[in-house]
């Protein structure tokens, strides 16, 4: 240690609420807005845009973005090798991604929070058992386990959700376990305990409400991870059945045309990247928000 380490910089800026922080707030809200747009597009888009994965017209194959198709419409994002509209694929793919992300987060969140909360609250053998299972699962790379599971069974939505949830619940379990462990020492939990309130009720009313916020922040990050993993599975041909639309499948179908028709892989790829980045930013913001509260 030199004396340098002891010198404090006297000009450390103190955070002041100025116009600058307002700019930062607006900029910070952009990713949340984009994320919201994706969700709206995923829910409402398919109601307005018609698209069928078996519908394409071979006369319209490999049209560049903005071209006019044989039936007189405009292919905003171009068409793929079978003449199918890319705009439709991106929209329907958004629906698939958001649906799978939501299902995986709901399913793994439910399992993770249940296991984590019960383990953290009860402690003892229950906790030991849950912790060891988590440790073992942590030793596997998540996507590898998902590939194995998705590869063994027939391709279907349920299998994809299960394959992705197998490792995804761990994050929820670890978070809720550590929170339940500190919450059970809170006086209001002790107070409810000495008033003879049932365990289930204590968990539901005195512990879970405090886990909800940080879990929501984690859920967004897990959501992004699930979407990325689903795209990876579909890219490898292990994801959804080929009759469904998925960004991963579209990207895979475009990889042979990267030199001639870049848009087939690039447009869904960009859509995927922007979604994951925006969800990540949203998650960070939520984490900071709930971190400040505690």
């Amino acid at each position, binding site marked *: 240690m030199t004396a340098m380490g002891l010198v404090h910089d006297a000009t450390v800026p103190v955070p002041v609420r100025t116009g600058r922080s307002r700019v930062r707030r607006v900029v910070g809200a952009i990713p949340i807005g984009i994320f919201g747009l994706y969700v709206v597009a995923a829910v409402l888009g398919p109601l307005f845009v018609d698209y069928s994965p078996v519908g394409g017209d071979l006369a319209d194959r490999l049209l560049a973005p903005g071209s006019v198709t044989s039936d007189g419409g405009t292919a905003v994002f171009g068409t793929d090798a079978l003449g199918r509209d890319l705009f439709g694929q991106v929209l329907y793919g958004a629906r698939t991604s958001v649906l799978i992300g939501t299902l995986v987060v709901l399913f793994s969140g439910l399992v993770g929070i249940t296991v984590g909360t019960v383990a953290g609250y009860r402690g003892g053998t229950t906790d030991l058992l849950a912790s060891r299972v988590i440790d073992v699962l942590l030793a596997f790379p998540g996507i590898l386990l998902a590939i194995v599971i998705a590869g063994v069974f027939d391709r279907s939505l349920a299998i994809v959700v299960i394959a992705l949830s197998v490792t995804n619940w761990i994050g929820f379990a670890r978070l809720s376990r550590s929170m339940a462990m500190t919450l059970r020492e809170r006086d*209001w939990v002790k*107070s409810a305990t000495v*008033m003879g309130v049932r365990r289930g009720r204590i968990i539901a009313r005195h512990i879970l409400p405090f886990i909800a916020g940080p879990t929501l922040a984690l859920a967004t990050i897990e959501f992004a991870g699930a979407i990325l993993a689903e795209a990876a599975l579909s890219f490898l041909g292990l994801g959804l059945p080929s009759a469904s639309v998925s960004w991963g499948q579209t990207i895979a179908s475009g990889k042979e045309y990267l030199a001639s028709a870049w848009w087939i892989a690039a447009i869904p790829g960009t859509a995927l990247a922007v979604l994951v980045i925006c969800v990540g930013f949203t998650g960070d913001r939520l984490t900071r928000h709930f971190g400040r509260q505690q």
Partner: protein
Amino acid sequence: MPERARQGSAGTLRVRDLTIALPGPRGMADVVDGVSFDMVEGRTTGLIGESGSGKSLTAMALVGLIPDTGVATGQVLLGEENLLTAGRARIRQIRGAEISVVFQDPSTALNPTMTIGDQVGEILRSRGLSRRQARERAADLLDHVGIPDAAGRVGAYPHEFSGGMRQRAMIALALAGRPRFVLADEPTTALDVTVQARILDLLGRLRDEDNLSMLLVSHDLRVMSHVADDLVVMYAGRVCERGPAKAVLNRPLHPYTDALVRSVPSVRVRSAIADPLPGSPANPFDRPAGCPFHPRCPRAEDRCRTEVPELREIAPGRVSACHFAELAQRTPDTVAEELR
């Protein structure tokens, strides 16, 4: 709700040889060692001692709330039933309904996400009352503990209450199950001095109205001298003196009690902290041999360093664990007092 029959020995909670072992730096240590006392119906028993003396741990053990790693032995007798060996289901029946607890800090002992009414009524809900009935009863209870406009405030959240009001709500919560024994763990320590007196008055009033037996855990002698009927003085996990509060405080039979009484500063006379207790409290994990108080005791002799003093009756109702308690019984002061 019909009035429960309150008679016989069930009106007293008897603690016998309560010993609690906790894992310490060198294996299990008895941080509470052979504690015995009674909680008598309609009386307030004060449990006093410095921090770390095991007083809170003792109180919590009465409702079966000790750390997971701890082991409690001895007896906590409710009637003829030893609560330390009772099953989980039985303990849950007793909690709230026979024995309940008022916690130290009402700002942490109330769940900030639930309304006051829901929390007070929680035990009633788990007994099968409807939401509305529980609310009505909660309002009655809040009114009983002196919260103005109780009916209008059952829907309020803890942060909308002041500290004193929160502690009143906490007391209402403890009384919701109509317990006979209330354990108050430093119920006024977290409150403003002006509010403290009101809460203590309230506890005294409730004890008389509902015929409760109360265990008041505190390190504050002045609180004790106002409220307690009986006193149990603890030091390093052991009882060093026990007896009627007035007698114990006026004529301590243990040098530790004596030192405690002397260390309380008087408000009127400027003798403030004239006689602070020397040394630091004994660590219950590393209790000195012999009498645990001997390193700080002005009267200590060789015998105190080796021989653990027995807790024995010195005068009727007065119990002390000091080798020289019989001598303390008759000092020039007390002799003069007797002659008067």
